[in-house]
Each structure stands twice: as structure tokens, then as C-alpha cells.
């Protein structure tokens, strides 16, 4: 048994060693409480709905969300009719029976549209920077949702002696861009009016949209946690059975 523990410890040590290697951080990002963290973590449906509203009203004018289809919004608790209506708010290019370009209304199978026709247009309208697609942003940045939350609330006056380039803003969490970010501060108190009556503080808005973006990046999180629990339960029983069977078979050698 001692040797098992030793072998397991060696494996874990190696794994945690490599994990700590990647945890090296230039700016400390405080950890936040999220409903989706932890062994049993789940998304808060109402929070995701509020986050969707924030994305639509604030983020969507510059940022695409290209891997999220309207049909996916069923996971936020919307029914089919609501999703249809939601999709129909957007228009998509189409070709009519005579072969001319036309527009059609969005369908549940459509994906969130790109606010810009092409990358050059996006850069031209965004001070030369390209607003990144947000569908994977929560997994594509070191620190994940914690980083996103602090980034969008991390605007403040630059420290004395630092000159911020024209059109840029100082952000104390934007270490990858020398703390100068092309996105201006977007979130303020009461910037949105929540449909569910929640008070729209800066903190609340940032939290909601971060949760929504984490869902967009990892929509399978809840299935992952629940499948994981069942698999672990099975594995524990199986490993115990195998252990006792092993002991019993090996006991024959002592006779």
C-alpha cells in the first residue's frame, strides 16, 4: 500500500509541478467566486440571461460571438418560440429566386452575426485594433473568467509618469499590451436596465457578462461535471473491487 501511495504521489507531483509551471503570472489576478466553479459547479440561468442582455446591448456592437448559435440559447432557459423571435431580430444575406442579393430573417440554426463585414473594416472602426471574437475568450486568456472580470472593470487613471497613447486607455490588468488597451471603458452603473429587475451595478454587469462568456466558451461545463461525478463514482467502486480481488488472489502466495 505504501508503494501505491508513493507511485500516486509521484504522478501527482509531476502533474502539479507542470501545472505550477504554467501558473507563472505577471499581474496578480484575484480569484472570484463563480457559480460554475467547484466539483458541483453549475451555471446560474438568470445570470446567463442577464449576461446575454449585456453582450447584446454593449459588447455586440464590436465583438462577434461566432461559435454560438441561437439554438444554443435553449441552455439559458429560453423556449423555442423565444429563440425564434430572438433569431428573427437579426438579418442574414440570402439570394432570392431571381438570383439577386437579399436579406432573410435569422433562424435558430444561425450563429450570432459579426458586427463587421471584414477584418479591415473592423480595424478601421476600432482604432486599428481588432476586437476579438468572444466565443472562446474565457478559455483563451490566462486566468479565464477571473481575468475577464477584472479586465473589464480594471480601468483607472494611469500611474504618474506613464503616457497613454492617443485613443488608448490604461488598464491595470492588460499586461499583455503594456497596460494600454484599445477598448475604452464600457461598463458603468446602470448602463443596462435588467429585464429581471436586478440592480445594474458595474460589478453586477461585469459578473453577469463574464458568466455568460464563460458559458459561451464552455457550454458543456454542466454535462462535464455531472458526467464526471458518475464516472468517478463508478471508478471508485471498480478500483476498490479490483483492489480486494488483487489482495485475495495474492494471498494465495502466502499459503
Amino acid at each position, binding site marked *: 500500500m505504501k508503494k501505491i501511495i508513493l507511485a500516486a504521489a509521484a504522478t501527482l507531483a509531476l502533474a502539479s509541478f507542470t501545472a505550477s509551471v504554467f501558473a507563472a503570472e505577471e499581474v496578480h489576478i484575484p480569484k472570484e467566486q463563480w457559480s460554475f466553479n467547484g466539483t458541483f459547479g453549475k451555471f446560474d440561468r438568470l445570470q446567463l440571461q442577464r449576461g446575454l442582455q449585456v453582450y447584446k446591448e454593449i459588447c455586440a456592437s464590436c465583438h462577434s460571438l461566432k461559435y454560438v448559435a441561437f439554438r444554443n440559447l435553449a441552455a439559458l432557459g429560453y423556449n423555442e418560440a423565444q429563440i425564434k423571435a430572438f433569431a428573427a431580430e437579426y438579418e442574414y444575406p440570402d439570394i432570392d429566386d431571381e438570383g439577386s442579393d437579399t436579406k432573410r430573417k435569422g433562424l435558430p*440554426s444561425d450563429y450570432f452575426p459579426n458586427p463587421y463585414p471584414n477584418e479591415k473594416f473592423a480595424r478601421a472602426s476600432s482604432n486599428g485594433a481588432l476586437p476579438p471574437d468572444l466565443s472562446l475568450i474565457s478559455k483563451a486568456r490566462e486566468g479565464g473568467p477571473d481575468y475577464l472580470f477584472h479586465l473589464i472593470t480594471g480601468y483607472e487613471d494611469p500611474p504618474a509618469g506613464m503616457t497613454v497613447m492617443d485613443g488608448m486607455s490604461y488598464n491595470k490588468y492588460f499586461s499583455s499590451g503594456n497596460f494600454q488597451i484599445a477598448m475604452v471603458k464600457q461598463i458603468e452603473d446602470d448602463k443596462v436596465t435588467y429585464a429581471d429587475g436586478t440592480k445594474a451595478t458595474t460589478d453586477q454587469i461585469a459578473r453577469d457578462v463574464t458568466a455568460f462568456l464563460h458559458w459561451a466558451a464552455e457550454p458543456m461545463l454542466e454535462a462535464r461535471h455531472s458526467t464526471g461525478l458518475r464516472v468517478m463514482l*463508478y471508478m471508485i*467502486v471498480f478500483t476498490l473491487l479490483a483492489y480486494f*480481488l488483487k489482495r*485475495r*488472489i495474492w494471498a494465495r502466495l502466502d499459503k
Partner: protein
Amino acid sequence: MANTATAHSVASGTADGETRRDFLLHSTVAFGTVGTALAVWPLISSMNPAADTLALSTTEFSLANLQEGQAIIVVWQGKPVFVRYRTPAEIESARNAPMSDLVDPIKDEERVKKDKEKYLILVGVCTHLGCIPLGTKPMDPRGDFGGWLCPCHGSHYDTAGRIRKGPAPKNLAVPPYQYLDDTTVRIG
């Protein structure tokens, strides 16, 4: 993996220890086998249609521009669907066909929606070996019964899409569909 530990392990040991181990052995093997089977399920399930494919499993189209005697092909789930605006003569010929002549007998009335008898909607895949029968375009041959003719092995379908002659065993299938309004149809 657990099944490597199966069966005829070793046939020695005392009777008491043996029964207890047998129970342990059998439950471990059974548990392991069930687990392996369950573990294989996601791999198999992944080959079923994915969510984005399923999201496109219905097709909507309009009948507004279809003229009498004309036919169009609509794509539904990657397959052609024949939509034909039948003439009164075609409907009559379909209804007058004696049931005894049919390979796969069914009344014309059961192949169309009530009050919409003029529109015939069929999955355009020959029930023989999956070719696409001719008969939709104006120049196409329509076979001996004025419906469709499959070019692969010569199956003749009538104006209700029923098999009348040739190797196909069944009538052209009627897909599940409904009228959303007077001229809009949703298949699937």
C-alpha cells in the same frame, strides 16, 4: 480491460476462500464489463448526427410560385424532395388506378393532405437502390404511368408516386410535413 481477469483464473485454494473470491471475481468482472460497455457508448454516439446537423433537419419552402403541371426539387436533410403541382388529369389517373394493379397498394388520398390534393410531396429517392428518379424537369421521361422513371434500373412510378413497374419494392416515401399557412410547407 477487466475481462482480462476473467474466468478460469486458478482452480486451487480452500473451499471457503474460493467462494468468497468467486463472488468478488464475478462482481469485479461484471462491473468491469458493464463499465467498458458504457465507456464505449460515447464513442458510438458521437457518430450519430451532431447538434448542428439536427438543427438543419427541417426545411421550409413556399408553394406560391409553383404553377399547375410544374414540379420542383427541394433539399431536405441532404435528400431531394419532389414537389409537384398536379393537373386534374394527373390526379384523376392516380385515383382511377385499380388497387389490384399496385405493388404497394395505397389510395392516392392517403398520399396527400386533405384540401391540398393538387400538391404531391415525395422523398425523391428510388426505393430500389437509392437513385434519383427522373420526371421533375419538363424534358424528363416520366415512365409508363406519367409520374417518375428511375434511370438506374427502370422503376416506373405513377402520378401519386406509387411503384407500378420495375424492381422497386415500395412507393416513393411521403416525408413528414405540414402546412404552416396556405402556401408555406415545413418538411421534417
